[in-house]
């Protein structure tokens, strides 16, 4: 597989950033980058294949900061096709989609890390077919 050139800095839409700021401000996460990765993981877990971010994107972190050991990229590579869209570009889209999904849950059920992790263990009909 051949990946096109990837990002060295990743970010989010302004709305997405505002959501992550709120998550951190509410005490769900110690750092913004943790909230960012959680949003990515959440979207991945739900099997979302997100579209490109349509609004203005703003960089937030250097890759070396947010994914120093490349684990996040590994997970994305395994779960999404990275020939045309490289992992960190997927990461931005996933973070955007994931943060929105979490924000929706926050409104309806409230943010509960333990429940979210427990739910992730359950089989989901929404998940796309594995590669």
């Amino acid at each position: 597989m051949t990946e096109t050139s990837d990002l060295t800095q990743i970010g989010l839409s302004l709305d997405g950033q505002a959501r992550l700021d709120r998550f951190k401000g509410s005490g769900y996460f110690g750092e913004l980058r943790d909230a960012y990765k959680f949003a990515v993981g959440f979207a991945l877990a739900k099997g979302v294949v997100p579209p490109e971010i349509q609004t203005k994107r703003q960089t937030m972190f250097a890759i070396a900061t947010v994914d120093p050991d490349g684990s996040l990229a590994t997970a994305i590579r395994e779960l999404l096709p990275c020939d045309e869209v490289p992992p960190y570009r997927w990461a931005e889209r996933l973070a955007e989609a994931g943060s929105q999904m979490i924000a929706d849950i926050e409104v309806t059920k409230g943010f509960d890390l333990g429940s979210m992790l427990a739910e992730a263990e359950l089989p989901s009909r929404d998940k796309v077919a594995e590669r």
Partner: protein
Amino acid sequence: MKLIRLTLTNFMPYKGETILDFPQDPDRNTLIVLGDNMRGKTSLLNGIRWAFYQKAQGRHLRAIPLHLMPNRDAVAEGDWTMEARIEFEAGGVYYDLRREAKKRATVSRPDRPEDYQVFAFMKKDGAAVAASDIEAEINRFAPEQVSRFFLFDGELLQEYEELLVEGSEQGKKIKDAIEQALGVPALINGRDDLQALWKRAQKEQGKEASLVAGLEAVAESFSKWSARRDMFEADIVTLKAQQVAVREERRSLEDSIAESESVYAHKIELDAKRERLKQIFTGIESKESFKRSLAADAWRDLVRPRLLKKRDQLQARLAGASKLASQQAKLQYQIEHLQEHLGDSVCPTCGQRVENVDRAAQQRQLDDLLGERAALAWCDVNSEDIAARHRALEKVLSTSVRSRVRDADSDLSNLEVESARVESRIDELEEELFEQNPDAVIRMRQRLQAVTRDEAKGQIEIEDREKKLAEADREIQSLTQRMNARAGQNSTRAAVMSKIFGALHGVFDASIDNLRTNLRAIVEKNATDAFLRMSTQKSYRGLSINANYGLTILGPDGECVPLRSAGAEQVVALSLIDGLSRANRAPGPVVMDTPFGRLDTKHRHNILSYLPDSARQFILFVHDGELGESAGMESLAHRIGGKYEIQEVSSNQSRLRRMS
């Protein structure tokens, strides 16, 4: 003496008129009044005491101020008149004694004892007795000093146990009270008067000696020691007065602290709960922080189920690649073997010549193998790439925080439940402490510590002065002897008086000792008789009395029994009171308030069997736990001549109901 009827009006919790009839049948001479704590049992005892002696006792046997005695509800309705009336028979004469407290006309709302006036009235066989003669009349058959032998409660019983503690201040006080009741003070007062006269004569003798040639130095020394003795005596009087004040403050503090014990306990609990709440909040914050730290890796757990599937697929592919490599190696070996064989006309295995027919067959076999290898190569995969992906996935999966998040959530949940409980308790406590002043209780406790220290220090100072006084006395006696020896036949009047008073003082001193010894022997015998009737331990030989009138149980071989249970202490105290009572007066009524707190059923049975025989009337104010149907009532059943129950009307009011 025999009690006939007690009538109380607005007396403590008894609003309006309350009548208690005492049993008159000698065979059924026991009266039981049942009542819960705080309902008014002690008030009945106080009703009798107040009628006789115009005194009522509260906790620690301290006097209850007069203005706090009238019933509160009656006072609230503007009725400030209180009365206790006791009708009794003594020496074949019927007495009607009535004592009444009334608000002074000049006082609108009385809030001090002085705001009341007390009037006593007595009729003797229907004839009025002059007010000035009433006390003398009472003293004929029930002097106040003796009242502690027939009007007593559990607290007084406990006080008697102090008699066993040698040198205890309380013990000395009770001993004085006992001797007062037994008549020793008559001799003691005589001795003290003689001592005063003797001292005066000694001083006179010293003055005279200073004028006698050769006695100047002795007289001067006598004068110095005499001055020192006066100083020590004055010191002792001052120190004792201070001690009384300190002790009074200590007792008052103890009472106040006891009354506010619940406030203090609530304050302590409130402080502890507040501290615990702080700890809970710190714990919650710490757990939240820990959870936030776990959240950094939580994304891994979110994708874990999908990545595990990926990992399993990669593992399967790795296994397939391994199998393929093994097949390829096997084909390669066979191909290489055949190629070698075909290049040589001799069989490499058996060394025989190979025919052309066989070679053609082998060439076909080689072609098949080469075809097979080519097909395998078509299916070849990059196993190194799969292995690298597998390794990378394992790394992602190596960290999981889910179980730790679950544990932290569980801890947080527990802490939140506890915090809700603690907060609720804090609210309750704050409400209970509203308008209370727990800090004042803490200050009282601190003050009590200081006062207790002062009391101990004061006692040491008194003992020091008493030692010095004894030394001064010895010196003065020695100097007096020297002056007497020198005077010889030419004694002055002062010297003669000094000798006479000294000798008389000695006689009184010895008489006091003799009287005490005799009284102790009588009390010991009486108390032993009572004890042997009341004790459940039949192997005991009896009781031995000490100088303080404290009693020690004697074991089977006459040895002292050092350790006694609380119940045994109470039986001994009862025996002492009975012994003292019988040493001092003719049989009369015995009125006991809540006396059985620490007694087991057998002791209670023995006591209840004995006291109705020992006393002319046996009046018991008890609660259910002390004397219920299952707690000793059957021992008394055949002696009960009356039974009452105290019923609660309101927090300020109780009433008596006759049950039989």
